[in-house]
């Protein structure tokens, strides 16, 4: 019997479950190695060579090199582990989280100061909130993702 996953219909969200954990094991252990200052130095000196020391998939290495945290998550990364890459780069958790939305750092910060992202339209896939797949990427520089419909429309299928 397959593992029950009641959380698959939450938009813009990957739950770090047993399957993701298996996929991401070496990616996350690589991230963990960046807790040591000497490893951070070696990684920064030659990222590709350092990544090649770990038995990750080539896709996972590419995702790290691109600093594409959404890509890292899809390949099994966990945000608390991936945060070690951000720390190595001197980035805050807010910068990292914001980078996953498409918004600029200032846009994301303004959203948080304004009370954060609304839950409305963002509970279930198929609603029309700003975290839904058809509204990505977010931010003023991505006008194609701006609302195309009245805010309460639910006509978009998953």
């Amino acid at each position, binding site marked *: 019997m397959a593992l029950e996953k009641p959380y698959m219909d939450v938009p813009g*969200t990957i739950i770090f479950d047993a399957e993701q954990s298996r996929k991401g094991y070496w990616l996350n252990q690589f991230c963990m190695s960046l807790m040591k200052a000497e490893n951070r130095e070696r990684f920064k000196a030659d990222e590709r060579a350092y990544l090649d020391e770990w038995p990750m998939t080539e896709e996972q290495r590419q995702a790290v090199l691109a600093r594409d945290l959404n890509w890292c998550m899809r390949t099994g990364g966990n945000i608390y582990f991936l945060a070690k890459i951000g720390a190595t780069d001197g980035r805050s958790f807010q910068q990292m989280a914001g980078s996953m939305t498409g918004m600029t750092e200032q846009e994301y910060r303004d959203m948080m100061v304004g009370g954060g992202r609304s839950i409305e339209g963002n509970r279930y896939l198929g609603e029309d909130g700003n975290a839904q797949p058809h509204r990505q990427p977010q931010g003023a520089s991505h006008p194609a993702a701006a609302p195309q419909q009245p805010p309460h429309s639910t006509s978009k299928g998953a």
Partner: protein
Amino acid sequence: MARITASVFTSHVPAIGAALDLGKTQEPYWQPLFAGYEFSKQWMKDNKPDVVFLVFNDHATAFSMDMIPTFAIGTAAEYSPADEGWGPRPVPKVAGHPELASHIAQSVIQQDFDLTLINKMDVDHGLTVPLSLMCGEKDPHKDAWPCPVIPFAVNVVQYPAPSGQRCFNLGRAIRRAVESYDEDLNVHIWGTGGMSHQLQGARAGLINADWDNRFLDRLIAEPAELAKVPHIEYVREAGSEGIELVMWLIARGAMADVNGAGPAPRVAHRFFHVPASNTAVGHLILEEAAR
């Protein structure tokens, strides 16, 4: 006999630690947040515990993917602040209470909760930020925290986290354990983490202040009902990292009223603020009625 006299609930956002450590507490962004803890710092001085039992979660610091204990209790004499990648926080080491911790471990395991025992662990922001918020800023070398701390780590990193019901029941077991300890100790139990926040994906930045405030209401007034809320509701309504709030139910489950041992606790302090970095900050202090 040892007794639990109060429970404290607070978020443990890492950026709060950074704001403290970098001297930003009076900046307009942070000032309203720290103002919400002014009462709490005085309350800690006026109600100094002998031991704090501090429920928190490790954030890929002490526990890598090597092992992921669901519930783990610290039985060490001392814990150092961890280097989470930005360097260790400049705060004092945390003294443990190995005797009471070992007693609680034995009692709670015999009440059918399978705890992992930790004799060596560095503690991350999940533990040190609540201490800073409640005890104020401390010099890492000249100062000390006001009392020993028993760290109690809960897995909320890899799904599934323990259910709210399991956490609530565990809190009840911890109360029985504390009350069967002979030495006369004043114990506070703290539940930390939350409130609504999501750190990942297109839904990053989610805040649900209505849900959070309802959570605070129910934690005070109907915790046994709140404990029935399933994992998926936390994720959907409070964000993927909002699941940390199950840890608050451990502390609430240790109070007298839900153990048939006394009246409802008194709400000494309640505070809610948005945002701290990516997160809604909630804070409660509940006092047991004097006995």
